[in-house]
């Protein structure tokens, strides 16, 4: 399959670099696809929020050359899951801080994993 794809014109993104520049971009992309598949939002609803995040970023000085695209994508994702009350800002913050503690205590080169005590302030 991949060989066929290469023979028929190369893999996605071959002319402009990889499809995703960093793994987090891919994860953020996939979460949106998965949530859409579950019916959490329609593509119209998603496009509206993403478009709004892009305009907001432009208004605060982002030259919006496409390289910051997944940052807007992530901001839109955070917004839509809080809007749909799947989670809230406080919970997002708590998990973010827990991951930071997990990263801090994890030696370089080993996988970072969350532990219950990462949630203790």
């Amino acid at each position, binding site marked *: 399959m991949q060989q066929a794809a290469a023979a028929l014109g190369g893999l996605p993104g071959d002319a*402009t670099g990889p*499809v995703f520049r960093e793994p987090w971009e891919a994860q953020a992309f996939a*979460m949106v696809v*998965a949530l859409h598949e579950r019916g959490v939002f329609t*593509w119209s609803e998603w496009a509206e929020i993403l*478009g709004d995040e892009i305009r907001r970023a432009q208004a605060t000085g982002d*030259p919006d050359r496409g390289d910051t695209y997944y940052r807007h994508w*992530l901001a839109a994702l955070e917004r839509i899951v809080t809007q749909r009350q799947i*989670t809230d800002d406080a919970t997002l913050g708590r998990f*973010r801080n827990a991951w930071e503690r997990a990263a801090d205590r994890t030696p370089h080169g080993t996988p970072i994993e969350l532990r219950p005590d990462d949630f203790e302030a």
Partner: protein
Amino acid sequence: MSAHDDDHAHGAELSETQLRVRALETILTEKGYVDPAALDRIVEAYETRIGPHIGARVVARAWVDAGFKRQLMENAAEAIIAAGLADRVGDHLIAVENTERTHNMVVCTLCSCYPWDVLGLPPTWYKAAPYRSRAVIDPRGVLADFGVTLPDDTEIRVWDSTAETRFIVVPMQPSGTDGWSEAQLATLVTRDCMVGTGLPTPDAKAQR
């Protein structure tokens, strides 16, 4: 939640952005909204299997098969699925055909709506403000930036994608390619051809 988080502001190995993505993924997984293995499969598909080669096969098929082309112009999603050229296609995909008189170009002025199922994910320039704003007001200038010059009397139609309606351009088959196989023809059809910012040429393969 700023768009200007500094990726390297923390001593930890995870950047601010990575922390936010992990927080989301953990919460959504715990609540049963996403499955990490399913996320991996989605990423893998877009990184390796779904890309402009799918659209290229669609265009090449339309060039060699008039019946398929008619179906494609009538209902692109149905035609592509029926022909087995893609696993899935969003409902409202519209094929727009270039002719001697009309050239089609696709943009999403709002964000970056794009026919993922047949072209993969959009290139950076498609998502960038200059293309999104200029494609509508100065399509000829944008085409010139891409090295495409059209006759003065060719009308340029710019299609603004939405989340509901997406477009794929069916370019004209280049002269000198009569008798080529569908697979050979597909190699001439680049992503840009199907967004309308490029033209297929018999030496396109060499430029890749």
